[in-house]
């Protein structure tokens, strides 16, 4: 396994965004989160107000856009969200800490494993709990598989919307393999609840290693196929290049993170710049593209898939040497005792009963933990009173921020490009609305 040594990086100077840069910029409204039209223009016959969504196959879930059209070009836009609001944050306040683990996955149902990871890491930070090495490496592996899964769904659906139907079948073929891997490890294809507070729910099954190895060896070929299908496809290039441009300053001011930020030329990745799990021991590159258009967002995700495959490979090599090691912390106040001990040990039975009925208590305090999810910075803010239930749970949703940038991106584009742009921002509505 290649472990990166001391990576040296050139000092970078970040652009500091000033108010002045937004005065009289290309966005007519005071803030670029909605494109507003003057009243007299709206009243005239030139402008047509169209309701787009909330149920439309190309809106990636239930997103509603109110679009003002002057002919084919978009002159006004405001996004309406909230159709998928399910009150996760309120629900989690009513559940004990260990029951809460099921909720975050369902918030962002495409990058589910990363959400679960963020929540579990936040609780472990409050508890100051040590997690075994094997669990940490497995978490990194599954998070990267989840990233691949998410990017494959992005690529398949975005291409489908622009008419490249075959991409959808190819992407979902590999997605199926990833879901099979998840099923093999966790028993569930999605929403696995495999990460527990303290480690993993179960040991990694022996059959996982060869299957995952097969996947790692196949995935680069699949990526070559995708590139061959798309990257010299004249229609795809025409539809994506120079469309939906988001400048670096705009991206930072609008709180963009993840692939959307890196496609705008900002070299920022939490896995490298604020490492968590074992990412500081893993060798990987961070793809950055400068143009900030739909094409660059696609390229960033394509390159990220290649890097993710490399990360999975490195994690797998490490995990193969960690066979037989513990996968969950041995802290009986937090972690359920092994099933077989319940028949022989009174102490274990008591611990089991206490954790299942009352739940364990987490010390008072507040933490914010951020990880790099497929969509960008996935943050989890927790407040604990010292009791068995969280006082406040809040998820910082990267999709929420990504949709704010829609109005900036679609300024002076055609309505057909709107589909391409919304798809390229890769917002998941469950994540946006929570």
């Amino acid at each position, binding site marked *: 396994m290649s472990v990166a040594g001391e990576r040296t990086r050139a000092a970078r100077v*970040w652009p500091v965004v000033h108010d002045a840069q937004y005065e009289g910029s290309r966005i007519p409204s005071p803030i670029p989160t909605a494109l507003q039209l003057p009243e007299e223009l709206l009243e005239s016959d030139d402008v047509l107000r169209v309701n787009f969504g909330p149920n439309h196959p190309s809106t990636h879930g239930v997103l509603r856009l109110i679009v003002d059209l002057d002919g084919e070009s978009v002159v006004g836009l405001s996004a309406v969200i909230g159709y998928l609001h399910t009150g996760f944050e*309120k629900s989690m306040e009513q559940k004990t800490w260990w029951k809460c683990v099921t909720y975050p996955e369902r918030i962002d149902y495409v990058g589910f494993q990363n959400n679960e990871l963020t929540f579990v890491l936040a609780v472990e930070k409050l508890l100051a709990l040590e997690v075994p090495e094997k669990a940490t490496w497995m978490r990194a592996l599954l998070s990267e598989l989840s990233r691949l899964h998410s990017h494959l769904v992005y690529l398949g659906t975005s291409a489908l919307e622009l008419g490249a139907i075959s991409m959808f079948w190819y992407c979902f073929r590999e997605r199926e393999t990833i879901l099979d891997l998840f099923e093999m490890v966790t028993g569930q294809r999605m929403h696995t609840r495999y990460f527990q507070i303290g480690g993993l729910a179960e040991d990694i099954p022996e059959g996982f290693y060869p299957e995952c190895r097969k996947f790692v060896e196949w995935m680069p070929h699949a990526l070559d196929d995708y590139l061959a299908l798309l990257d010299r496809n004249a229609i795809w290039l025409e539809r994506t290049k120079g469309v939906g441009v988001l400048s670096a300053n705009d991206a930072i*001011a609008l709180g963009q993170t993840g692939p959307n930020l890196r496609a705008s030329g900002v070299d920022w990745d939490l896995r490298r710049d604020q490492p968590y799990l074992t990412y500081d021991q893993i060798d990987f590159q961070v793809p950055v593209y400068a143009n900030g258009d739909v094409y660059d967002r696609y390229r960033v995700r394509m390159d990220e898939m290649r890097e993710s495959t490399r990360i999975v490979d490195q994690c797998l090599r490490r995990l193969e040497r960690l066979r037989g090691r513990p996968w969950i912390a041995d802290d009986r*106040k937090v972690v359920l005792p092994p099933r077989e001990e319940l028949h022989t040990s009174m102490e274990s039975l008591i611990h089991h009963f206490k954790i299942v009925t009352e739940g364990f208590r987490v010390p008072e305090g507040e933490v914010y933990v951020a990880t790099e999810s497929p969509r960008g*910075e996935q943050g989890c803010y927790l407040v604990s009173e010292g009791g068995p239930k969280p006082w*406040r749970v*809040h998820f910082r949703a990267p999709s929420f921020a990504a949709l*704010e940038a829609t109005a900036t991106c679609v300024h002076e584009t055609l309505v057909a490009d709107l589909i391409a742009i919304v798809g390229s921002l890769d917002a998941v509505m469950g994540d946006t609305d929570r």
Partner: protein
Amino acid sequence: MTYRDLPGFVEEKEAFGETTVTIEPARIRDASEAARDALGFQMLVDIVATDYLGWGSQGVSGYIATATGRDINFPSTQGLQTLPSLKPKRFSIAYHLLAMRQPAERVRLKCWVDDGELVPSVVSVWPTADWHEREQFDLMGIRFEGHPNLARLIMDDDWEGHPLRKDYPIGGEPVRFSEAQ
């Protein structure tokens, strides 16, 4: 410039490896601008309000489950081992800022408000605050002064109440039974 020089600085606290800087609510916009321009926190990551109504009033029993802080010789302590620290006002609003440099730096600006108290909007400092403030207004009922469009974002426009408040009923959906008609 340090956190102490931010306009409206009240206190600086370090916990769980995170820095929390409390700011007077009326000066939060000035403090944000100073944090962005003088301290280099280019990005506003998140705005989150917390309702502390009823904080620390529940007695609970059981283990204090921490890797370091529990005492296994005294399980089942009635009530909390230590009572939660008291909060100055009902709501806290936390602004999570990120400085994208090496090493990465994060800070949490925090201000305390009572119900109905106005907080200056930071939309003019970070445009991304637009939706974040609308969300906190919608779900928690925090009023931001100077926000260009403080309308509900997540819930319906005609929704009553703010669901994430602690006094908002759970399962409070009125059900009409057939006998009542």
